[in-house]
């Protein structure tokens, strides 16, 4: 693990492993389907027509490229690095999730699948999936933990308006992990006609690589936009991590640029010294769940423990396997921000820049706010603003004692 690979961008291997991480730990019923999916994806990836259609939808439907915006007031306030915001919250449906969903639903259509299922935490992936399924007239079922159904009510209403069926999941802690279990259970029974649209860089191979590929549009754009704005690459990248798809999309195109320092920000919940956090890389260890080997929050025996985060989208006891590998190779630095720090950062960005960030992305802002003052003024720092915070307004208002 300690030797430096020639490239950080060549994984996974043909069996879907990033070092010891990743793989395909699924029921035999699903294995043949997953092998089919891998084949279909590899063919689509190499097909100019598929790529052309995806590019068209990303541009004309989702509104890409998203701007790379120089946050002047935030930069002045923090008094260090020059901060840019990658405005993926401006995408149609309000987050980076649409990048991946457009790709997967196009693939579902190409494979002749007639039904799409998805899991969702904050509801952003659920909304994106419901949206694209409406566009392509494909029936859509979204599994969502009942706790998340309550705390992300606006997104539940959006999914329903878009024609999706939302199935609340009451098993376990009734959050994202349980929604994913239930989606996998549905898929085992329906795999012949159903496409499982996973929302993050986790699950069995080829999902971690496929979702990453679809999200790499974020980092590819940043590379180009920063060259145009500053004539050089950024020095620092910061993104929040639940499963880690927005982070992987930003990071991956820069992994082989050694001058770029990269930070993934996990949710520290009520603190890493408590048991109430969602920092699987910092507080967990390798294990097998949801089809892949990765860092997990678990007890000594291997029973999965409940994560906690104020942000439903980060409230997951695992993380994408490629992040686990990047942690062990040391290429990416994994840090964390607490619930309180995220809420503070949420307000900071509202007041200084007139941007309401998602609670998930607020974790990235929170860490950047600590990091930026320690860096020189010519350090170009990019925060991935992966989602907008409209969905979080009721929750934050309540926390701040506002009446709405």
């Amino acid at each position, binding site marked *: 693990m300690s030797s430096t690979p020639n490239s950080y961008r060549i994984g996974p291997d043909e069996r879907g492993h990033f070092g010891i991480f990743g793989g395909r730990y699924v029921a035999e019923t699903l294995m043949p389907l997953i092998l089919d999916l891998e084949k279909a994806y590899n063919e689509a990836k190499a097909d100019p027509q598929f790529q052309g259609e995806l590019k068209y939808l990303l541009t004309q439907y989702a509104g890409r490229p998203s701007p790379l915006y120089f946050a002047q007031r935030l930069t002045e306030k923090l008094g260090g690095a020059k901060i840019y915001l990658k405005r993926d919250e401006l995408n149609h449906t309000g987050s980076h999730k649409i990048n991946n969903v457009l790709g997967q639903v196009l693939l579902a259509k190409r494979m002749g699948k007639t039904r799409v299922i998805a899991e969702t935490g904050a509801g952003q992936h659920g909304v994106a999936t419901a949206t694209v399924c409406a566009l392509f007239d494909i029936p859509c079922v979204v599994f969502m933990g009942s706790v998340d159904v309550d705390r992300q009510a606006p997104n539940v209403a959006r999914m329903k308006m878009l024609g999706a069926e939302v199935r609340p999941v009451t098993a376990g802690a009734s959050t994202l992990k349980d929604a994913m279990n239930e989606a996998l259970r549905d898929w*085992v029974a329906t795999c012949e006609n159903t496409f499982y649209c996973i929302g993050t860089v986790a699950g069995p191979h080829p999902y971690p690589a496929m979702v990453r590929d679809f999200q790499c549009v974020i980092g590819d754009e940043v590379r180009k936009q920063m060259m145009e704005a500053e004539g050089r690459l950024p020095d620092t990248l910061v993104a929040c991590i639940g499963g880690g798809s927005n982070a992987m999309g930003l990071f991956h195109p820069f992994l082989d640029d050694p001058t770029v320092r990269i930070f993934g920000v996990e949710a520290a919940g009520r603190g890493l010294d408590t048991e109430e956090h969602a920092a699987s890389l910092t507080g967990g260890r390798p294990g097998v769940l*949801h089809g892949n080997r990765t860092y997990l929050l678990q007890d000594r025996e291997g029973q999965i423990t409940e994560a906690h985060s104020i942000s439903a989208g980060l409230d997951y006891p695992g993380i994408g396997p490629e992040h686990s590998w990047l942690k062990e190779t040391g290429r990416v630095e994994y840090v964390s921000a607490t619930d309180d720090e995220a809420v503070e950062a949420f307000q900071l960005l509202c007041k200084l820049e007139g941007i309401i960030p998602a609670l998930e992305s607020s974790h990235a802002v929170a860490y950047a706010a600590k990091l930026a003052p320690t860096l020189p003024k010519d350090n170009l720092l990019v925060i991935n603003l992966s989602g907008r915070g409209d969905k979080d307004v009721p929750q934050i208002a309540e926390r701040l004692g506002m009446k709405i």
Partner: protein
Amino acid sequence: MSRIEKRFAQLKADKRAGLVTYITAGDPDAEISYQILKGLPAAGADLIELGMPFTDPMADGPSIQLAGQRALKAGMTVDKTFDMVRRFRKETGDNDTPILLMGYYNLIYQRGPEKFCKDAAAAGVDGFILVDLPPEEADELKPHATANGLDTVLLTAPTTDDVRLPAVLKFASGFVYFVSVLGITGTKSATEEAVRTHVERIKRHTRLPVGVGFGIRTPEQAAAVARHADAAVVGTAIIDHVKAGLDDKGKAKPELVPGVFAYIKALADGVRGVRKA
């Protein structure tokens, strides 16, 4: 010869199929669960699957999910599961009935495949059925299982076609477990015709016995499977009888254990009523 091989050889000599019964270790608590385990062979079980409770049983339906939660809440652990098996071998003197551990790979991975296999074999376990360990990932466990004399029963599904079957069978020993429906445990049942077709197909690829599970609830269904397969596997319906024996507070009523045995005896009668060539 492993206990599993011996048991299937005996069944063949007796010209009948076997009954494989699943219970979740520690459901509803360690002691009641042991009382059930102890009496399974007398009730008519030919092989025993002992489920290791896991927080995230993604291939299981509501019945077995809840059984796992009851067991974990009552403090079940992997060590206590080994203790159950050790106690069974010692107290009953039954050195013939195979016991397979069924569950999810993370519990094995956390202990370490080598140590897990050593500990399991020392306790008197005969093999594994691991739901989320397809042949593609089995090479980490297989050498340690083999070195400790443990069989690895692999699952095949209706989606496992003739091209893929040999790859699955390469890692299989003991018997082959055919999951007869698309879906999680305890939700749907296959038709007798579908079972016949798939068992014949699998047998064209292997000389291992074939057990069929998922969705078997009645003695008639068990008998229908027994006509075509070497064993019928029943899980959810047994767990439902465990649950039916719990009071409002989740405590075992006196009729729980006898109720489970009576049900298993009816299943066994169904299976044993089928004479095989």
